[in-house]
């Protein structure tokens, strides 16, 4: 691996990310999968780093899931997106930041489509007006929340309580970065670092002390693929793609995986359980799995947030071995306590995947 070669490519794919004043749109599914990720994105950006991030309770799905499942035409998705732009305009913002990778891809694709076909934009403006009497300005900048976190990685590193370093050996943690397909595979110039060697997550991992590993199936999709997962008959394809990635990364003994998509961390986490039940195979050390974290969770850990406040107990793969490696303290007794410190239910244990 010639690191300078990657740096050369990264220099070609830098995008402008404004420093402040963002209109935030959430993901449809992340609050169920990773309940504290969006909350901590806002907490870190607003409370710790003093940025202005605005959120409206009136925003809806971007319709990306329905669009990619072929259940609605693109014009419908465009009108839904136009309404989000209207909310942003009404709130007085120009910069849109999305929590979800598919939303980011959807917004980008729509803006690019309008750039190529202005008559379509005019029609959508008319449709939006007819539907809800709203008007909008297009955002000046569209970023994914990981872009913003990438931009702030230095400030986070300055406030870091923990480094992504193996406490016992002093070696950097070996980190697999996995980028959502809709981040830069559609429009390479819209993603930091391009499509083949994105640096949005590797930049964070390196800034916080880790070492990124490049394995043969690094670019491969997690397998979510909408219609692959949502249709049970196709779900084996989804699983097989994840399996292919794990088989490929296994020889590198990664300590953790970080992701920037709603789907990828979910599948990279939960499928480890399914693979272990199907063929008894586990990919972490001593029968554990490889923890798959969102970048917000990772930033939270680095900044010293309590792992259970970050919602790491809802991961299938136990995060305790990772916390021990870094030296992050946690109270095992608090793992399954709810918001009011009352015990919520404790999950059953898998057959072969070791959990704490």
């Amino acid at each position, binding site marked *: 691996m010639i690191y300078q070669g990657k740096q050369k490519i990264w220099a070609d794919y830098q995008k402008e990310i404004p420093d402040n004043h963002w209109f935030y749109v959430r993901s449809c599914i992340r609050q169920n999968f990773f309940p504290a990720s969006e909350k901590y994105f806002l907490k870190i950006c607003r409370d710790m780093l003093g940025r202005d991030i605005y959120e409206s309770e009136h925003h809806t799905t971007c319709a990306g899931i329905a669009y990619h499942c072929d259940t609605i035409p693109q014009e419908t998705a465009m009108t839904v997106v136009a309404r989000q732009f209207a909310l942003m305009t009404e709130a007085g913002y120009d910069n849109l930041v999305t929590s979800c990778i598919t939303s980011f891809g959807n917004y980008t694709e729509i803006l690019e489509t309008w750039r190529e076909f202005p008559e379509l934009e005019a029609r959508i403006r008319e449709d939006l007006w007819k539907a809800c009497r709203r008007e909008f300005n297009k955002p000046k900048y569209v970023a994914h929340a990981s872009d913003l976190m990438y931009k702030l990685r230095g400030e986070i590193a300055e406030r870091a309580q923990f480094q992504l370093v193996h406490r016992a050996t002093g070696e950097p943690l070996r980190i697999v970065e996995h980028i959502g397909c809709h981040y830069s595979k559609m429009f390479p110039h819209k993603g930091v670092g391009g499509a083949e060697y994105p640096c949005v997550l590797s930049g964070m991992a390196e800034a916080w002390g880790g070492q990124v590993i490049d394995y043969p199936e690094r670019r491969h999709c997690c397998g979510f693929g909408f219609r692959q997962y949502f249709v*049970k*008959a*196709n*779900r*084996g*394809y989804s*699983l*097989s793609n994840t*399996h*292919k990635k794990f088989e490929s990364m296994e020889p590198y003994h990664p300590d953790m995986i970080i992701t920037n998509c709603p789907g990828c961390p979910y599948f990279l986490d939960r499928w480890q359980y*399914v*693979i272990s*039940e*199907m*063929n008894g195979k586990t990919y972490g050390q001593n029968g554990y799995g490889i923890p798959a974290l969102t970048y917000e969770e990772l930033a939270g850990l680095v900044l010293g947030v309590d792992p259970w406040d970050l919602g790491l107990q809802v991961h299938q793969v136990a995060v305790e071995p990772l916390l021990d490696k870094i030296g992050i303290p946690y109270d095992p007794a608090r793992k399954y306590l709810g918001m009011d410190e009352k015990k919520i239910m404790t999950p059953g244990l898998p*057959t072969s995947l070791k959990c704490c």
Partner: protein
Amino acid sequence: MDFGFKLSPSSAVNLDTVDHARYDRLVRLEPDALTCIGCGSCSATCTAAPWSGMSVRKVILGLQRGRDDEVDAMLSRCMLCGKCTMVCPRGINTRHLILTLCRLNRKGEVVR
């Protein structure tokens, strides 16, 4: 545990693990097989192909890609008429090649 779905086997050919023994033995006995360009003249002229699936092109390629089951199924359907030999632009004696191949087992040993 039955999840109602399974890991799908990969259809990809992994050239790192394909066993070439039978192909290697074949090309030692029939060196002309190496010069196949996959043009398909043999299959196009084959009288058995339309209903049997026989294709000399696919046999030669299948051996190199470790698809012995498909190769053996095709070989069993050949009528040995030799029409394919007449049309090969590289002059491969395809009929002789098929006879030679039928004598080799999967390890490339001459068994017949």
